[in-house]
C-alpha cells in the first residue's frame, strides 16, 4: 500500500501512514496538540495549519469548505477530522 508521512510540528514526531489516512486517525494516537469537537466536520474545533504539503492532501469536501469559510480560515488551514493524506510529506501544527 502506498505510504505517506505526516510530521506533527508541535510534538516533533513524523508518522508514516498508509495513503488515505485521515489526520484524526494519527494525531490522537501520537499525542499531537490538535483538539477535536464534533469529529464530523461541522464545528471547526480541529482546524489546523498545513505548514507544508497541502498538495498531498485530498481536496476538501463541500462540507469542509463551508465550515472553513465560516471559521474565517486562511488558505493554509484544514480540518484534521476531514483531511486525508494521499502521498508524500505533510507538515501540520495545531491551528
Amino acid at each position, binding site marked *: 500500500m502506498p505510504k505517506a508521512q505526516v510530521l506533527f510540528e508541535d510534538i*516533533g514526531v*513524523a*508518522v508514516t501512514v498508509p495513503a488515505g489516512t485521515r489526520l484524526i486517525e*494519527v494525531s490522537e494516537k501520537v499525542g499531537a*496538540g490538535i483538539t477535536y469537537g464534533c469529529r464530523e466536520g461541522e464545528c471547526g474545533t480541529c482546524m489546523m495549519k498545513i505548514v507544508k504539503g497541502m498538495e498531498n492532501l485530498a481536496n476538501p469536501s463541500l462540507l469542509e469548505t463551508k465550515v472553513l469559510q465560516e471559521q474565517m480560515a486562511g488558505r493554509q488551514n484544514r480540518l484534521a477530522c476531514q483531511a486525508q493524506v494521499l502521498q508524500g510529506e505533510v507538515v501540520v501544527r*495545531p491551528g
Partner: protein
Amino acid sequence: MISAPVRLRRPGGDFDAVPVAEDVHWIGALDPTLRSFDIILKTANGTTYNSYCVRGSEGVAVIDTVKAEFADEFFSRLEQVARYDEITTIVLNHLEPDHTGALPELLRRAPQARLYISHRAPLMLKGLLKHDGESLDFTTVTQGDSVSLGDRSLRFLHTPFLHWPDTQCTYLVEDGILFSGDIFGCHFCDPRLFNDKVGDFRFSFEYYYQHIMRPFREHVLAALPLVEDLALNLICPAHGPIHRDAPRGYVKRYRQLAESQLANEASQRDKTLVIFYISAYGNTAVMAQAIKDGAETVDGVRVSVYDLQGGEVTPFVDLIEEADGLAIGSPTINGDAVKPVWDLLSCLTQVPLKGKLGAAFGSYGWSGEAVGMLEDRLRGLKLRVPCPGIKLKLIPTGEELADCHAFGRNLALQLTGQAAFRVVDIAELA
C-alpha cells in the same frame, strides 16, 4: 450627564426605561435572585441583562436583548421609548442566550429591522434560532463598519473571543458611548444602575474578569487598543453597572488585569518549566526531583518544583499561566490520579494554555493508570505533550531515576526547540 432619577417600575406595573444619555435608554432587565451564572460563576446579588435603545433622526437601534424569561420586562421598557415600526436596527454584540433570549420575539414585532452581527456569529445565530442561516436576513459586520441612524452612527469594533468567537463592541460615535458586550461587565444587580450610584461592585468586576475574560487574555490585549483610542463618555456593558463616572478607569484596570500577573524574574530568553507533584510515599517526589535535575542540564530553562500538598490552587494556576511548560506527577490510587491533582487541572480552563508543553509522571503500586489519564487531560486542555509520560512501579531504582533525568532533559530540549524529530510508523502506535 443625564441626571433623571432611576425609577425602574411604575405603580401600574410597567417597567421604566432608564435614560443613560440624550435619546439613549437602558431597556434591560434585573435578575436579583440569580446565584449561579453559567454554572461556573457565583452571583452574590444577582445580575442584570443590559439592553439599550438608541434613537437617531432616521432610525432607532436596539442593542442586545435579554434572557428569555425576562422578555416581558425588556419589551415593556422598549415600548416606553420606541414603537416597533420605528426600529431600523438590531445589534447583537454577543449571541449567548442571556443576550438573545428576546430576539425571536423582537424580530417578529419589528420585522423591518435589520439585524447586525459580527462576521463570526452566523453559525451561532443559526444554532440559537434553529433557523436556516441562508435565508435568515442579517448583515455581518467587522472592524470599522458602521450603521447610520441619521444624525448618529454606530461603529463596530472587531473584538472576538471576549469571551466567545462572535463578540464585538458597538460605539455610538457622536456621543462617545461604547456598548461593550460582556467586556467591562460584571454580575452585579443594583437598580441604581450607574457606577457612581450602585454599591461597591469592585469585587464583582474583578471576579468576572478572572472567570470570564482571563482565559482569553491575549484577545483582551488585542482588543484594548481599539477601545483605548476612543473618546469615552460612557461604557455600557451587557451585565452590571453602566460606567459613567471615569469610564476610562475600567479600561485601564482591564489592561492591568490582562498583563502579566507575576513578576517573572527569568531572563526573557529563558523558558520556564514548572513541575507539580504529589506523593504518598515519596516516590513520585523523588521522580520530580530527578526530572528537575535533568531539565536543568539544558541551558536557557528555568525549572521550579512544587509539592501540591503545600499550596493552594489559585497561586499555582497563576504560575502555570506564566510558564512555558508544565509537568505534573501523581501516584495512582484506586486506578486514578489523586484528587488534588484533578483539582488543579480542573481550574486550568481559567488561563490560556494553548501550545504550552505538558508532561505527566508518577509512581504506582499496581497498574499506573494516572499518567495516561493526566496526559489525556493535558491534551484536552490544548497543551502539547511531546514526550510520552514516565511511570514506574513503587520505589525508583537508579536506572529508573536515570530515565526520569533523561525525561526532564527531553522536556527542556523540547522547550528550547532543540529536540530531534522522531519518526514512527502508525502501526507502532497503540
